[in-house]
Structures are given as C-alpha cells and as structure tokens.
C-alpha cells in the first residue's frame, strides 16, 4: 500500500524519467516507479532501516544528509527531483528548493500543511502545538523545524519566480473532496506541489 501522496506523485512522473528522491525512506516510490514506468535514479536517505530496505528492494540508495546539499549531482543531472515529507525537517528549505531546481527542471514536494483546520483548531482552541496523523511528534522531539502552510509555500515560489505546474492536497480518505480543492490551505492536510523553473 502506497501513501496517498506517493500515489499521486507516481501518476505525475513520466515513463522512463530519471528521478532523484530526497529522503526516499524505504524506497517504496522508486521501486514502484522502476517496476511500472521504467524509471531510473537514486534515493538519498540517512535512516539506517530505510537504507537497508532500499538495498533489499534493489533501489539505488546513497547515504547522504540533505542539509549538506546536492553538490554531488550535476546541473540537470535528473529529469525530476522528488521530496516527500522532508522539506519541513531541513535547515534551509529555501536553499534546498534552489538546489532541487538546479539538478532538475522540475520538482515535486510534499509537506504537512500547518494551516490544516485540525491543526488550527488544536492550536486555536486547545492552546497546544498540534499533534496529528501528519504531525505525529511532540514539540520537543519533532524533526520538523520549518513547518509551513500551503500559502507560505506558494508565496516562496512566487518570490523565487518559480512556476507552480500543479498542486494538490493529500488527506487520505478525503482526497479530492471539493472543500480541499477550493480551500486547500484550510482543508488540505498534506500539501503537494509540482514546481518548475520559469522558462
């Protein structure tokens, strides 16, 4: 079973693409893309269990800390760079976005939307930092140091002069519900963006 955001990304990636998956976890996406779409590429990961799982699956995995950048990948080395649920854990998400669009013309990014209504309610009514399915950690041990919203990310792309090719929300069962399509910043639990360099 693939996570809802991975299913959508799987559909977005073209046949035979060369893909770099940043924070590839157990290599689920790359393995499925290799099997279904003849996709090649590499996953970067630092979690030992994830790396071992990738090796067992036959996914090319490189042990590499994303905060150290992508200097070992040439300009336009790939067709697409994917990063699912890792942006918010990076030291400088904005610089990573530049790096991703140096290595490939297009990238796909997913992150938990902090402005999701349940998160707002948690903070607004209960007065505690939100803990949810997409934000499962307590404030003191969370790896998520740069939480942002659907709107924040759109603004960053605008400021950088990037073009948003596509966007979607992933909320498991409610995926595609009209509320989240119309008001993604309020009803989208996971933000999914497809961003390209302005041509």
């Amino acid at each position, binding site marked *: 079973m693939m996570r809802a955001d991975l299913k959508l990304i799987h559909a977005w990636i073209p046949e035979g693409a060369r893909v770099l998956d940043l924070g590839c976890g157990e290599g689920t996406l790359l393995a499925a893309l290799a099997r279904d779409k003849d996709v090649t590429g*590499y996953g970067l990961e630092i979690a030992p269990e994830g790396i*071992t*799982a990738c*090796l067992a699956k*036959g*996914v090319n995995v490189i*042990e*590499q800390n994303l905060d150290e950048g992508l200097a070992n*990948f040439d300009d336009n*080395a790939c067709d697409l760079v994917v990063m699912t649920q890792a942006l918010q854990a990076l030291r400088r998400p904005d610089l990573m976005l530049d790096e991703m669009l140096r290595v490939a013309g297009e990238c796909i990014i997913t992150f938990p939307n902090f402005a999701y209504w349940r998160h707002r309610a948690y903070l607004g009514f209960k007065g505690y930092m939100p803990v949810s399915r997409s934000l499962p950690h307590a404030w003191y041990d969370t790896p998520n140091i740069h939480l942002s919203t659907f709107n924040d990310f759109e603004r960053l792309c605008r400021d950088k002069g990037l073009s948003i090719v596509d966007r979607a929300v992933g909320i498991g069962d409610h995926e595609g519900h009209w509320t989240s399509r119309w008001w993604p910043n309020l009803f989208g639990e996971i933000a999914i963006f497809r961003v390209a360099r302005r041509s």
Partner: protein
Amino acid sequence: MPEFPRDSVGLVTPETAHFSDPLALACGRTLPAYDLVYETYGTLNAERSNAILICHALSGHHHAAGFHSADERKPGWWDAHIGPGKSIDTDRFFVISVNNLGGCHGSTGPTSENPETGRQWGPDFPIITVVDWVHSQAQLADRLGIERFAAVIGGSLGGMQVLQWTLSYPERIAHAVVIAATPKLSAQNIAFNEVARQAIRSDPDFFEGWYADHDTAPRRGLKLARMVGHITYLSEDAMGSKFGRDLRSTDLNFGFDVEFQVESYLRYQGDTFSTSFDANTYLLMTKALDYFDPAAAHDGELARALAPAACPFLVVSFTTDWRFPPSRSKELVNALIRADKSVSYVNIDSSHGHDAFLMPEPRYQAVFAAFMDRAARDLGLEGHS
C-alpha cells in the same frame, strides 16, 4: 569428526591451478607460467551462475573462511562474512577466494622458482598491478568454467580489484561490492607505503632483495613496515580504548624498553608478521596499491574511466577509517553517479578504523546481506533468505 561452528564453512583445503600460457603484465614483462592457489566454499550450481570472487587486501591470502584443520585456532580472515546464513551465504553462493600473483601463500611470487634461472625470483619478480591480478583471476574463472560472476567482492586493496573487474570485464560481473577502498591512493597513503618500503630496503639483511641467497630475511624492516601499517589500520579511538596509556608494569622505568601496552602490541604484531610474510611480496603489494589509478588514462576524470562499468555497485565505508576515509568512497560514488551507473552507498558507524571491514558489525552485516539478497534475486538463485 572435528566440531566447527554451525555457521562455518568448516574444513577447507586449498587447491592449486597451474597456468602454462604466459601472462602479459602491465609493466611490459611477461610471466611465462604461474600457479594460483585458491579455496572454494559452497557449491557451484548447474547454470554456473552463483559464483562469487573474493579479492584480498595487502597482507591477505586465499584462506578467507573456514578452517584448514581441527586445531586451527582462528578461521579464515573474512569468516565473519562468509558462511551458511552469513552476508555471503554459502548455502546459495559458490565462493572462490584466490591468493594473488606476487603473494607468498602459494601462488607464484617472489619466493617461487624462476624457471629461467632455477633459483627464487626474489627481487626479479615483475611488478604486478591490480589490472594484472584481475586478468589472472579471469584465467582462473575460465578454468573453473565461470563465465560471469554473480558478484566480485573485496575490501581495501581488494575493493580496488573489484573496481578494476567492472572496467576490465564488465560482461563478466553481475554485482560489485567495494568496501573501505579508494579509486586511487592519496599522497599520504603513498607516503606511508614508502616509509614501509624504506624500512624493509634499509634493513642490512635485505641484500637488495636477495636475502634468501644469504639464508636470512629483513625481519626488522618488515616488522617496522607492519608496525607503521598497523597504526594506519586502527582508529585513534580504537587504539585509545584498547590501550590508552596503560603501562606494562606499575612504574615508569625511564628507558627504551617496552613500557606502554601499545608498544608491546605493535611489536608483537610486527614480530608475528615478519616471520610469516615475505618482504619482497610486501614491497610488490604496496607498489600495486600506489600504481592503482583507473582515472589516470582519462585525464584524471574518474567518471569517464567508469564508462565501461555495467553492474550495480554497493560501496561501503567506515566512519573512523582514516586510511581510506569515507570521503574516498564518496569520490567513487559521485563519479559513478556522474557516469549514470547503478550505485548504492553506505557509511557504517564503527570505531575500528580501516580494520572495520574485517569485523562483524550489525549494520554492516545487515546492508551487506540485503545487497547480496538482491543479487541472488536478480540472478534467480535458489536458497533460503
């Protein structure tokens, strides 16, 4: 019946293959005929598709796993990783481990007889390179009827042979495992080798390499060479935690005898080695290390040199290895990425320095086994997993 551990390949007997076809060497000379000593573990399948070649390091040899006799105190040098159910699982792979040319454990080398003179080759033995080793190993593969290896695997200098295999015989290797290696030696690496060589060559018992004619051997020089080498194999932490500043006796005795435990350890290592290893072989092996540089023929561009490689790679380094540190493995990995090759890279947390590649460590074993599982699956090999 002697009792061996259940996960051991048990009793093994080395075999010798004689080759009477001359082998042209990189140095321009030709070896008229030669022997290769090797061991095998496991069973070659009917399709001959499950063979693995193990390449040894500087002071290694063919005895990689199991025991030569019931009284042998220690098993082969890579017994931690070769055996039933181990990373290199002999229940499904047929493993070949060969002593390299120029060695002193049975394969043709400086201690063998030179057919032209009837006496030991000694210092006249031609300089052997990693490329030559790979060619000779391919001859052995032909002899054993192995067209393509399921994997070629090695650590340190062994890892360089693996890399050379992917370039010299890309169609004959299905998977490459390069552990604690480097695509070329650094100036510091060569410097350490040169200190080792000078230690041997300046020993009065060296006799320009003809020590056998004088019924002696440059043991003091070889001992020093090994002591220097040994320091580079261990990490500062490993040495610190093993010996610290512990003294052999309770008081300082203000002299030059052994006082610190680390001195005693190094002398012991050097002494043992100097009575069991040939000095001319040691000189040859260090030269093979120094000369290895596949990128040299491509203006130093490793990615271009790697163009022929066609198999998936696993590259492994160890955090405290300062002989061939993680940065050297990354250099290889990055060039493989640039060359658009299939590669995975793992940097194992270990306190054991360069020697970590010889030891069992849970994460090292897990990634090694996972990659070998995948190799077996790629080739449709039977066996438990």
